């Protein structure tokens, strides 16, 4: 029997959440882009202000609903809305940002609701624009926080890479549900 899961894409502005959902989705993405006027956070031309929504079917017709949320903290009410329903979290971090580790800590704290009842992966984007070694630093920080969260270096525009990341997360969701049923 096919299952259905909600996966949440979160992370700072410009990390590639909208792009990742567009890359993965098999349906036209529902987007809520507005012209960006808040240049204190990003110089992007547009920004998501409510959500992105896409869908993808993994093997055997299992349906994955993909929700992306805005990156700005002023939209934290949207973060809270979706956390209750999500079985898994894709946390995307922009490696070329000033402090990716600070972003990691911030979003892990703010999305603790998903981590409490679900699972997560971290995707590090824009690695080609940075000489820093965020991947190993992220792994270290996650270990320090005693979180079992795999870290991937991904290009949000690359469907194959994003499918690998999503498949890993969905497998973790399935394992967790199997464990919960066994308990």
């Amino acid at each position: 029997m096919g299952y259905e899961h909600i996966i949440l894409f979160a992370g700072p502005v410009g990390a590639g959440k909208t792009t990742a959902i567009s890359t993965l989705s098999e349906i036209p993405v529902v987007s809520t882009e507005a012209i960006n006027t808040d240049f204190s956070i990003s110089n992007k031309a547009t920004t998501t202000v409510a959500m992105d929504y896409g869908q993808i079917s993994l093997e055997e017709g299992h349906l994955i609903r993909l929700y992306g949320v805005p990156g700005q903290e002023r939209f934290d009410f949207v973060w809270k809305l979706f956390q209750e329903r999500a079985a898994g979290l894709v946390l995307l971090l922009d490696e070329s940002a000033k402090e990716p580790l600070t972003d990691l800590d911030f979003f892990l704290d703010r999305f603790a609701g998903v981590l409490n009842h679900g699972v997560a992966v971290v995707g590090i984007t824009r690695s080609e624009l940075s000489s820093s070694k965020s991947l190993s630093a992220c792994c270290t920080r996650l270990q320090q926080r005693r979180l079992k969260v795999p870290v991937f270096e991904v290009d949000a525009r690359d469907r194959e890479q994003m499918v690998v990341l999503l498949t890993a997360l969905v497998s973790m969701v399935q394992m967790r549900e199997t464990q919960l049923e066994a308990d």
Partner: protein
Amino acid sequence: MPAKKHSKVFQALCQESLRQLVTETAGVENACLVSGDGVEISAVLGENVSPGRIAAMTSSMHALGAAITRELKMKECRSVIVDGDAGSIIMVRLPVAQPELVLAVTCGHRATVGGALFAARQHARYISEKLSETT
């Protein structure tokens, strides 16, 4: 919140327009003008109403209205109305403003939604016209 700055003349004009909207329309309690990406531009709000949160929520709600309007091929979203037990929230897109601006108005049970919507649209049109003149 540092963001795109509108001229002082425009901001004063917006503030006066919102003040009139709240004081001269029966039942209208709050009014807030926000950018499409959720930044407050001008507001006349009661106590305990956070302009930052209202601005972000207004832009999200309006964007969702625009998304379903597009999905159903109904062209542009002009307004979104949220009908609560103790009042209504009306969000009206300003015609022709680029980048997009949205006017949010809340009204209690004394107001008729039709009357508040009419007043909000009139003020949205007025602010739009002034924006064209001052930029």
